[in-house]
């Protein structure tokens, strides 16, 4: 008891007023800690009622971290601040990467990419579906229409670069859709207010960006040139997963990210609806469904829906809540 009291006295004696800087740092640390705690319930909830297999795996987390870090690295390197040391650079990348992760739209986009990579790899292993050069793409490259052939070639290049980058868990800034690119730049700008040299890098990045030359855009443009034949891309084995999900999104009038996510085993209802909304009949629908090698039951009732009804259900589900 007396020992404790003595300790308390010593403590009081030593207590000097902390500097404003130190106080600020502690507040920031606490805010970070709070954020971490706030993130716990949804994560725990996810793991407790885990779909089998889970949507979020170590692999997905690692991929997303890799992608975010790689975006941050490209941003930092775009400034001409070659002078900063390696340690400082690593620190800045980490900070920016966390700042990007705080944006839900950036996060959702990276998540869909992680799932796309995972599915692409799975399909390659199990079904021997080439992640880059599918039979349909080969056919398009050999097309008699120069425009189609040219676009197909560009799409092939973009897709192979994407697959290679994803194996290294990195992601090129040019691959971001315009609104995500805008958000990423906005966050970076906000974070580097005290670095005027960032403005130059920003301007250059904006100037060289063209959404229409990204992989996803090229796939969509390629499908566009196929006109009525675009339905051929709804055959996964022929088209490959990248072109297939673009076609799925286009025919059901839904965002491509959702079409990609529907490939996950926890999303079988969505997949069935997507396939139906794209206009596949029962036989084709079942065939495509099974390729994703889901153990779950094939939802036969989907086939009773008209394609428009399936599309309506999807549209309703993806409408923002309370809007």
């Amino acid at each position, binding site marked *: 008891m007396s020992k404790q009291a003595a300790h308390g006295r010593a403590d009081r004696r030593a207590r000097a007023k902390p500097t404003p800087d130190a106080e600020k740092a502690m507040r920031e640390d606490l805010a970070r800690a709070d954020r971490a705690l706030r993130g716990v319930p949804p994560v725990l909830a996810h793991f407790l009622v885990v779909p089998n297999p889970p949507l979020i795996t170590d692999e997905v987390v690692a991929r997303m971290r890799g992608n975010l870090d790689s975006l941050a690295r490209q941003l930092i390197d775009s400034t001409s601040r070659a002078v900063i040391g390696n340690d400082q650079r690593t620190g800045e990348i980490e900070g920016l990467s966390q700042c990007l992760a705080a944006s839900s739209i950036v996060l959702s986009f990276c998540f869909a990419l992680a799932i796309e990579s995972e599915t692409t790899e799975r399909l390659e292993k199990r079904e021997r579906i080439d992640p880059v050069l599918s039979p349909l793409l080969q056919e398009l490259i050999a097309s008699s229409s*120069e425009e189609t052939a040219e676009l197909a070639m560009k799409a092939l290049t973009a897709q192979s670069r994407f697959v290679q980058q994803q194996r290294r868990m990195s992601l090129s800034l040019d691959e971001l859709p315009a609104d995500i690119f805008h958000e990423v730049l906005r966050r970076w700008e906000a974070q580097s207010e005290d670095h005027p040299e960032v403005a130059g890098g920003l301007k250059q990045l904006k100037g060289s*960006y063209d*959404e229409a030359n990204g992989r996803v855009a090229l796939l969509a443009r390629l499908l*566009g040139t196929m006109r009525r034949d675009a339905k051929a891309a709804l055959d996964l084995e022929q088209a490959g997963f990248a072109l297939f999900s673009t076609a799925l999104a286009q025919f059901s009038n839904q965002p491509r990210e959702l079409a990609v996510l529907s490939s996950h085993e926890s999303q079988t209802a969505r997949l069935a609806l997507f396939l139906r909304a794209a206009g596949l009949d029962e036989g084709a629908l079942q065939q495509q469904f099974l390729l994703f090698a889901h153990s779950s039951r094939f939802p036969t009732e989907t086939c009773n829906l008209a394609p428009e009804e399936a599309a309506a259900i999807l549209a309703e589900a993806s409408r923002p809540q309370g809007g």
Partner: protein
Amino acid sequence: MMNERDEALLAARGHLDRDGRLLSADEPLARLQEDCGGTLPGVIAVPELRALVEDCMRIGLRIGREFSAFDGTFTVTGYVRIHPLDEAMGGGCELLVENWQRQAVEAPSSRDLASRLDDIDRASAEISARLDAEQRLQYVLANAEDAGGLQETVRSSPGRHWSDYLTLKGVAHHQPLHWRLLDGSQCELPGSERNWRIRLLPIGPRSTAPLGFDLLLLADRPLVEPDAEPQATHSQLVGSALTPVLRRPIARIVAKAETIRARLAGPLRAEYSEYAGNIALAGQHLGAMLDDLADIETLDAPDFTTASEPVDLVDAAKRAAGILGVRAQSKNIEIVVQNPAKPVVADGDFRRVLQIFINLIGNAIAYSPDGSTITICAGRSGDDRVELSVADQGPGVSEDQAERIFDKFERLGRDIGADQEPGSGLGLYISRRLARAMHGDLAVTPAEPASAPPGAKFTLSLPARAA
């Protein structure tokens, strides 16, 4: 930069200013704009494109998206790329549409169509009422000002058969008729000068024995007269109607003629190659002429106004000179822009001033001998005026020519070599009209008979911008 292949994919191109007005558009885009109720130039009227343009302007990035729109008959789909333009070029954006496709819209089933028409009528009826199963009026809701008479009658004697309250037209048969026969017929209302259409929509699961009816009355025209047309019509024939339609075929003529001239498709006798060159030249002339005619129409429009903003004349002249730099170089002509001691700032419309300078410098290049110099200098010409002059070392303009040079289609026989880009004879006319619209003027100084080389000097004067 887009490469040639991308160009081949391109179906239509358009330019928008910073306020989202479509300034120019290739034929398919121009037609879609008109089908959607817009004009050219005018605010972009295709809702789907408009949303994308706004997106692009908001984030200032080059975007590319699929779009689909409805032109009244067909569904138009394509891939649109929107490139924001530099502020230095006046802002706005460029619109490139690839893969333009028109598809017939699937006709809705007749049942869907009928139910949609019912919905439209429900939404647009100015008077609606509820009837019971015997078609007796239960209540009436009216939004129209001329429905007072009807409401008065209903109040004084409620609960009667609905047809007692109004005058059916063209129904000779004695009431009651089967309701289906009255659905869609016309009537008049007490105290209303309008004609009304009747809709009777049954309520309840069985339309053969309805539990009641919705009675809708739809007027044949809105009560408020639309404002009278603001002005007598001025011709929009060339500008909005012909130019977009003609530009594309002309461009094709020029491109094909160039192909022949350059013998890209195979060997050809020299004379034919030369003829093709002439065709290309004439085509270019026609194209330039169309643009000019469209400009004149714009100028003649009653609502034509110019912006009032500070315009640095020297800066504008340098930009115009930059745009024409290649043409000047090909004739080995030097353009000298003299820098004034302090900026010469006019009150005017930057784009219009630039247009005038491009015309003046373009003319100077066309009429100057090889290896000569064009001198541009700016300064104040009074307390509240500023001016900028463009002087060349060409043959100059005589006094009586100076009188006529600003007239429509006046070229004064100053014809230039066949290898030059021909003019329409409208440029100076337009430039002077523009200058005067900005409360300025454009004048030419006749050559002194004795001076050599004579040269022509065009001077644009504008009100000075108060500092």
